[in-house]
C-alpha cells in the first residue's frame, strides 16, 4: 500500500475514477452498458482513445473496478444478467445508500464502535474497520467524550492466510491450502470455509473438509502455503470461482460444541515451582508449599507444549506422558537447530 499524504490530482487517481463510475451508474435509471460506461467515465474514455481497438486492458480495468466497488459494499448489479456481455447493463442496487429504518447510533455507541474498530492491529482488518467507521461518522454522530481511553484491546493476526480466508468466508468460495501437522506431515486441503475462531489468542479455521467429508478445524499458523481460491472451467476460455451454499447453522453449532467438548476432556496436570513465572501465570498465590499442582484443559497438545516451553524451568509435567514427550522433542529440535 503506497503512502500518500496528499489528495492526488483529479482523473489520474483510482479514487476519482471509482467515484465517477459510481455517480454515472447512479444517474442512469435503466443501467448502462459497458460501452456506454467507457464513454461516460473520463479515465475509461482516455484509455479507449489511446488504446484504439484493443480494449483488453480497459476491460480488465473495468472488471477490477466493478469488483472494488462490490468489495466496498457498492452493489453493482445487472438487471438482465443473462444477456450478451456487450449488451449487459449495469446499475447500482437501489438499497445501497438506504439504511434500514431505526438504525441510529448515539454518541456513546459511536465511541464503542470506535474502540471496536481499533481492536484490529495493523495489517489485519484495520483498514476495513476504519472505512466502516468513516461511514458511520458520515451519518453525522459525534462520539462521546473519550472515557474509554487507557484501554487498548488488540486482536493480532500473525498469519497471512487470515485475510484471504475471511474474504472466502464472506464470499463463500472454496479454498485449498497446504497444511503441516506438528509431526511434519504435509497435506493439501480442500475446504469450504465457515468461520474464523479465536481461542486463547490462536486463530482457527472451522470448515467443511471436502476430502474428509466432515467438519474440521485448522490452525491458521499451520497453513504453510498461499490460500488458493478454487476455480473451475466453465467454457473454453473462462474459469469461475467455486462457490458453496451457506452452511447449515446447526452443523456449525455442532462443530463448535464438538471442539469445546474435546477441549474440556483433555486435561494436563503440572507441578509448578513456587514464585516462578509459571506460578504467577497459573495464579497460585494462595497455595502453600514449595510446589503446587494444577490441572488445565487444552485444545491441542502441541499448542500447550508451545505455551509451556516458556515455563520449562518452572514446572514438571505430571501427565499426560505424551505432553512430556512433545515438550522434550521440541527442545531437542531447538538445540539441534542451534548446535
Amino acid at each position, binding site marked *: 500500500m503506497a503512502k500518500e499524504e496528499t489528495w492526488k490530482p483529479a482523473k489520474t487517481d483510482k*479514487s476519482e475514477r471509482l467515484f465517477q463510475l459510481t455517480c454515472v451508474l447512479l444517474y442512469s435509471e435503466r443501467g448502462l452498458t459497458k460501452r456506454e460506461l467507457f464513454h461516460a467515465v*473520463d479515465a475509461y474514455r482516455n484509455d479507449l482513445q489511446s488504446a484504439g481497438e484493443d480494449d483488453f486492458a480497459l476491460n480488465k480495468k473495468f472488471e477490477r473496478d466493478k469488483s472494488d466497488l462490490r468489495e*466496498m*459494499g457498492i452493489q453493482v448489479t445487472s438487471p438482465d444478467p443473462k444477456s450478451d456481455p456487450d449488451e449487459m447493463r449495469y446499475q447500482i442496487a437501489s438499497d445501497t445508500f438506504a439504511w434500514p429504518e431505526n438504525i441510529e447510533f448515539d454518541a456513546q455507541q459511536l465511541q464503542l464502535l470506535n474502540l471496536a474498530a481499533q481492536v484490529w492491529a495493523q495489517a489485519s482488518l484495520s483498514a476495513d474497520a476504519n472505512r466502516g467507521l468513516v*461511514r458511520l461518522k*458520515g451519518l453525522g454522530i459525534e462520539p462521546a467524550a473519550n472515557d474509554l481511553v487507557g484501554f487498548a484491546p488488540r486482536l493480532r493476526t500473525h498469519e497471512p492466510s487470515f485475510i484471504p480466508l475471511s474474504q472466502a468466508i464472506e464470499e463463500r468460495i472454496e479454498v485449498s491450502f497446504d497444511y503441516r501437522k506438528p509431526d511434519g506431515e504435509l497435506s493439501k486441503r480442500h475446504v469450504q470455509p465457515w468461520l474464523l475462531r479465536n481461542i486463547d489468542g490462536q486463530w482457527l479455521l472451522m470448515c467443511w473438509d471436502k476430502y474428509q467429508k466432515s467438519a474440521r478445524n485448522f490452525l491458521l499458523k499451520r497453513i504453510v502455503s498461499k490460500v488458493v481460491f478454487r476455480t473451475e472451467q466453465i467454457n473454453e476460455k473462462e474459469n469461475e470461482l467455486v462457490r458453496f451454499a451457506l452452511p447449515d447453522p446447526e452443523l456449525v453449532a455442532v462443530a463448535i460444541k464438538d471442539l469445546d467438548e474435546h477441549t474440556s476432556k483433555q486435561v494436563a496436570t503440572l507441578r509448578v515451582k513456587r514464585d*516462578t513465572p509459571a506460578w504467577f501465570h497459573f495464579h497460585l498465590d494462595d497455595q502453600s508449599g514449595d510446589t503446587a499442582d494444577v490441572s488445565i484443559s487444552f485444545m491441542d497438545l502441541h499448542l500447550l507444549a508451545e505455551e509451556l516451553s516458556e515455563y520449562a524451568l518452572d514446572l514438571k509435567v505430571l501427565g499426560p506422558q505424551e505432553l512430556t514427550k512433545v515438550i*522434550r522433542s521440541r527442545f531437542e529440535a*531447538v538445540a539441534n537447530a*542451534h548446535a
Partner: protein
Amino acid sequence: MPKLKGFNSEDRYNFLLALVGYLGHRTEVSLSEVAEHFELESDYILKALRSLNDATAQVGGFEEWPFYVDIDLLDDGIVSLTTAEVIDDVPRLSTRQAAAISAGLSYLATIPEFAGNTQVQGLIEKIAAGSSRGMAEVISIAPGSVEAGADQLRQAILAGRAISCEYINRKGEKTKREIDPLRIDLTGGVWYLRGYCPVNQGVRNFLIEHMRAIELLDREISSAAQAVGEIEDATYVAEVSDTVVTVEVTPEAYRLITEFQTVSEPKDVGSGTIRSEIMVGHLPNIGRLIARYGGAARVIAPEEAKDYVRRYALAALGESAQTEAREIE
C-alpha cells in the same frame, strides 16, 4: 481512527462517499467542524471538496455536474453542499467493514470490562443490519480470562494517577515499584500494563499477572509520563542499546516477527521461510523467546544469541544448568 498517512485510493473513495452523505444532511457547516468530525486535516477536506466540484458524468450525451459546493462560502470557511444529485446518504457498510467492526465488538464483549454492557450485543445486530448484504458470522472469539488488578489499573489511568505495586520479575524477585500507568493492552490473551517507569525514564511493559498489591497513589502521573505520545502497539519496543538478531521463521513461528519491531523488511527465503532482523533488549531473553517455537524459529546470528538459545534448550532438557539471569521486565 483514519490516519492520513495510510490513506490509499480506496480510503479516499470511501471518504468521498461518506462526506457527501454527511454534508447532505446539513445546510452549512464550518470547515473546521468537518475536519474535526472526521479527524482529518482541513486541507485534506478542502481537496476532497474540490474533487466533488470537479466530478462530472457524461450521461446520454450531456455533461452532468452531480455536486456543487458553494465556493464563496468556502472562502469564508463554511462548507455548503448546495447540489447533490445522485447521492443523498452514506452508503451502507460493506460486508467486510461490517464483519471487521462486528468482530471487534464481539472481542470487546469477551472482555469483562464490557461483558455487562448490553449495548455491545445490540450494536452487533445493528451493524449486521446496516451492512449491504446482510451478514453471516465470519469471525468469532471465545471469551478469555480476566486478569485481577486490570480494573484497578484502568481506574488509575482514567484518574491520571500513579500507582505503586509489588512487581515480580522473571527471577521471582519481588520489588516495590512506582509506575505511571498509561494504557492496558490485551493481546493474545495476555494482559500488559504500558506505563512510564520513573527509574528507567521510559515506557515499559509490565505483565499484569506479575503485579501484586496495587495501590493508587495520591500523586498525578509525572509530566514526563504525560508527555508520552501515542504508544506503539508492538509488544517489544526497540531501543538503541538493543541487539540486532537475525532469525529465520517458518509459518508456525511468524508470530515472532510480527510481535517484534523488525529492523529490515522480512525477506522470503523460500518454501515459506522468512528471514528477518529483530531487536532484542536483553539478549539472555532470546532463549526463552525462540525455544517456544520448537525449532520453527531459528537464530542465524549473532553467535552469542545462538548460544543462549542452545543453552536454554539444553537446560530445559536437564542437560546443563541454567545459570543466566533472566529478563527483569
